[in-house]
């Protein structure tokens, strides 16, 4: 049963690719950030699922239990979550500044304005696709 032993990785890959898809296909900056968050959570899931041991328990020493899951990924991901929210809020702060500067958070409109500023003309039709 080779295939079922690896399903945790495949769930992670599906989530990661879904986040990746949102990141590149979405036009809205906040939705992009949410996609990035999903991507990030999938990495958390990857680490934690690798630390799991069959029959193991949470890594808190108790009398009579010898089989624990690996504590190292837990430590790494625990701190990564808190760092993740801090960096997400930095991204959201940037979005707010973009909104104030451009009055939109739609990526294509921002690109069009930038092009207009640089070249003094509207974006050629071929580039907007």
């Amino acid at each position, binding site marked *: 049963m080779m295939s079922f032993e690896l399903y945790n990785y495949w769930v992670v890959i599906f989530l*990661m690719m879904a986040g990746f898809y949102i990141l590149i296909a979405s036009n809205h900056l906040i939705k992009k950030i949410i996609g990035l968050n999903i991507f990030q959570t999938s990495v958390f899931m990857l680490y934690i699922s690798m630390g799991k*041991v*069959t029959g193991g328990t949470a890594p808190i020493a108790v009398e009579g239990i010898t089989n624990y899951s690996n504590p*190292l990924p837990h430590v*790494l991901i625990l701190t990564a*979550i808190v*760092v993740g929210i801090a960096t997400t*809020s*930095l991204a959201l702060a940037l979005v707010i*500044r973009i909104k104030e500067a451009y009055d939109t958070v739609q990526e294509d409109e921002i690109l069009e304005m930038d092009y207009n500023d640089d070249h003094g003309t509207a974006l050629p039709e071929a580039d907007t696709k």
Partner: protein
Amino acid sequence: MLVFTTVAIVRLRSLFAIVMLSGIYSLLSANIFIVLDAVDVAFTEAAVGAGISTVLMLATIGITGYEMKKRSNIKRFIPLLVVTVTGAVLVYGTLDMPAFSDAIAPIHQHVAPRYILDSPQEIGIPNMVTSVLASYRGYDTMGEVIVVFAALVGVLSLIGIREPKVPPNYIEPPARPILQVMAKFFVPFIILFALYVQFHGDFGPGGGFQAGVIFSVAIILYTLTFSQYDGMRLTPPHILKILAAAGVLIFGGTGVWTLLKGGNFLNYSVLGKTSVEGQHLGILIIEFGVGLTVAAAMMLLFFAFVSRGNSKL
């Protein structure tokens, strides 16, 4: 469940629904973390992902607007192709990976046995996650705390905090009386729970990161149900800024203290009479520093977003 939620997030266009779904997504993943034995991680994910991140996202879409415009000439094919190809390559890569929950996988052979077998004696505390976090990998954790602090500095320099000068009109009946009464009832218990998580983190799941987040949630609840003015009077931002910096200073200062005592940087064994006693003291101090920085940083981030939104109205 997680997969369905993700698909819904991909398909939806209403930002409000997307943000709410991402909160549900975080709560679901916290449940999965519990099933996978990662209680400390689940704790953090539930508090951060379902709590603070949702509030910050809502504050942001309050400023930027709720609806997305449909892109006129959208090309879905190329992103889909890129994603499918990348996913296929990654799946191919997993074929060589060790099976799920395999006890002889390479990840369990390197340093993990030392952490599991020796840390209860070496450090003297049962929660291995805390002892790895604070002692064996103290450098990493210090780096993470500094990253949180740096992100806070970045947000403050980008959008800043505007303190309202005019107090709200207290004579009028409150707009949300039921919520306010309930919040008043909950806030002390949340703070008590945060302190428990902070100081009991050596024995059960918990520690500075979780406690800091939970503490800030209490203040955020108070600010949301009352007003920004009340919240900022309770925890003035200029004091929070000092506290956030002080937390990093406590962490680094403990490292310097161990250096002065003749040990390595962040090797707490030299702090006490015995090695275990020193480790206890060191972990308690740096967890306090972590909790201080995280709590102050989360509150300041929240205030920054909320005050930006209020000043626009």
